[in-house]
């Protein structure tokens, strides 16, 4: 297990380094002067000069890259072009809101989707199974921001059950939760169906395997067979998927935070794109990459912990 963990962490770090390099080189891949291209033709000479300094455009490339990576490792993500505020601070201010959104969105999807998938597999062709199958396909394909907008239309505008703007009063936990309901709902809806389907397919496959027949042949009780013998194997692809889901959710929060006017890194990034504030964009994207790599790393480690074959390198 330890060997596997070390290898996996190593790979994660490698990917982070490559990602940093990619983000770093983005500015140079475009022909022409990176500063004017990044800032646009209407940028003032002052801004251009500051951009050049900020991005270290006067030094040779490998040095710049090394500098950049060094900065990131020290937690310095550069500074906002205009306000000069450290990017890291700006990100940390709003990150908790995004994390809360992602956690609640994925959370409810997991709490509903996995049991649904399990039930659908054990009671195949039941009403629940058929209903879930049809609804799943629908909810999977509809974009989450469309769900968000319509949720606002129905539940906030027409029915006035939930608020549509903001994250709520900073000191009031209940108010914050109240403001999370609609955003978490719209972010997670597609994932409920997706998880249900994956779990169902996985369970059906595992339940058909020979070792389950052996468990039955020894008279084990059905709940034990479903949970300890089947689900433990069937859940593995889902765990991997959950790690990948974080990436999709990090993308989705960009839209959801806009729809619900919630603070968060999505909101931050979008505002900065409009003003072509590249250091902030770069820093924020880097943070999301880091979060995503961490999520997939954790997912892989959990799978290895649950499945001894993975640990053995099979």
């Amino acid at each position, binding site marked *: 297990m330890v060997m596997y963990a070390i290898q996996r962490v190593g790979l994660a770090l490698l990917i982070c380094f490559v990602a940093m390099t990619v983000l770093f080189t983005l500015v140079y891949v475009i022909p022409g002067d990176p500063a004017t291209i990044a800032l646009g033709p209407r940028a003032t000479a002052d801004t251009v000069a500051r951009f050049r300094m900020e991005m270290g455009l006067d030094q040779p490339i490998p040095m710049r890259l090394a500098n950049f990576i060094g900065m990131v490792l020290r937690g310095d993500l550069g500074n906002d072009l205009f306000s000069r505020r450290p990017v890291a601070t700006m990100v940390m201010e709003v990150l908790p809101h995004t994390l809360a959104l992602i956690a609640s969105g994925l959370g409810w999807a997991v709490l509903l989707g996995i049991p649904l998938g399990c039930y659908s597999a054990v009671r195949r062709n039941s009403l629940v199974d058929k209903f879930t199958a049809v609804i799943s396909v629908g909810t999977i394909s509809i974009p989450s921001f469309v769900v968000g907008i319509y949720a606002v239309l129905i539940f906030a505008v027409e029915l006035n059950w939930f608020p549509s703007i903001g994250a709520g009063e900073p000191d009031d936990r209940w108010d914050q939760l109240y403001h999370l309901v609609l955003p978490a709902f719209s972010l997670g809806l597609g994932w409920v169906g997706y998880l249900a389907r994956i779990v169902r397919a996985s369970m059906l496959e595992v339940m058909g395997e020979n*070792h389950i027949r*052996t468990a039955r*042949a*020894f*008279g084990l009780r059905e709940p034990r067979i479903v949970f300890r013998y089947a689900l433990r*194997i069937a859940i593995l692809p889902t765990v991997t998927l959950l790690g990948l889901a974080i990436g999709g959710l990090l993308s989705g929060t960009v839209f959801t935070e806009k729809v619900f006017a919630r603070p968060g890194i999505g909101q931050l990034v979008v505002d900065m794109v409009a003003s072509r504030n590249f250091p902030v964009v770069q820093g924020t994207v880097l943070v999301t990459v880091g979060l995503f790599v961490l999520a997939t790393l954790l997912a892989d480690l959990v799978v290895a912990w649950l*499945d*001894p*074959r993975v640990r053995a390198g*099979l």
Partner: protein
Amino acid sequence: MAADSVLSIEGLSIEFQTPRGPVHALRDVSLAVPRGSIVGIVGESGSGKSTLSLAAMGLLPENATVRGGRILFDGADVLTMGTAQLRALRGRRMAMVFQDPMTSLNPVLSIGAQMTDIQYRERASAAHKRAKAAAMLRRVGIPDPEQRLDNFPHEFSGGMRQRIAIAMGLLGSPELLIADEPTTALDVTLEAQIIHLLRELRREFKGSILFISHNLGLIAELCDHVVVLYAGEVVEQGTVREIFHGPRHPYTEALLVCDPARIDAVSRELPTIPGDVPNLLQVPAACVFAPRCPKVFERCRRERPGDHAVGAAQSARCHLASA
């Protein structure tokens, strides 16, 4: 017959529902496993051997329909039992060893976990159950059993996994152990070891064994009684001696002739039985072996033969035996 049989199958007929229609997998099958004996079922692929064993355990797939007959385990009909009753039998009074050791154990649970799980009905401490499992592993020839209880199936070879399966099967001291082609997936040396193990264990463990195989040699070595299955029907049965020294059904004769282990004459061609096993979507009207039988005559194609007693314990389903 029924009194001292641990398992008695009477007139069993089973169909499978398939998209192309019902497949008549077993037709009017009757056999008995006397207490304390080893009965072998021999047949080609598709003869219905596995269906028979799964039916006895109540493990038939969803598309199987029982069209008639009874399966009496110690006098009680398995086919009419509810899930709870069946569960009470399985693993305790009746146990099974499956054919493929690579897929019949749960890959993510340790051997110890699986072996203690199946003892769930016993009121004993976890340590006791573990010790019992270790003892059984030692008995089947797994070295260093206390350590190896914490290993996972993929850490064992195929031969060892099959030993573990046998250990699991015997853990509850069952009255009947059904071994469904336990050595088919193993190479010849391992096969010999497993058969040797079963022979040893049989002396200590006082139950019966129902041993299924396509290999006549194994049956001859291990079993007391033989049941010959062809295309879903019992065509002959008797003691090993009766069957191997005096077969009365042409199929049994042909099987013996074609067994590579018994061939003395040097020749370029191996003897075979010409033709194919019939497609069981159509129930054959008369004798099921008629299309391939070297001794076929006109009555065979017209009239289905009955079971005729031809020896003390031997019977054959053939018109030739009615003489």
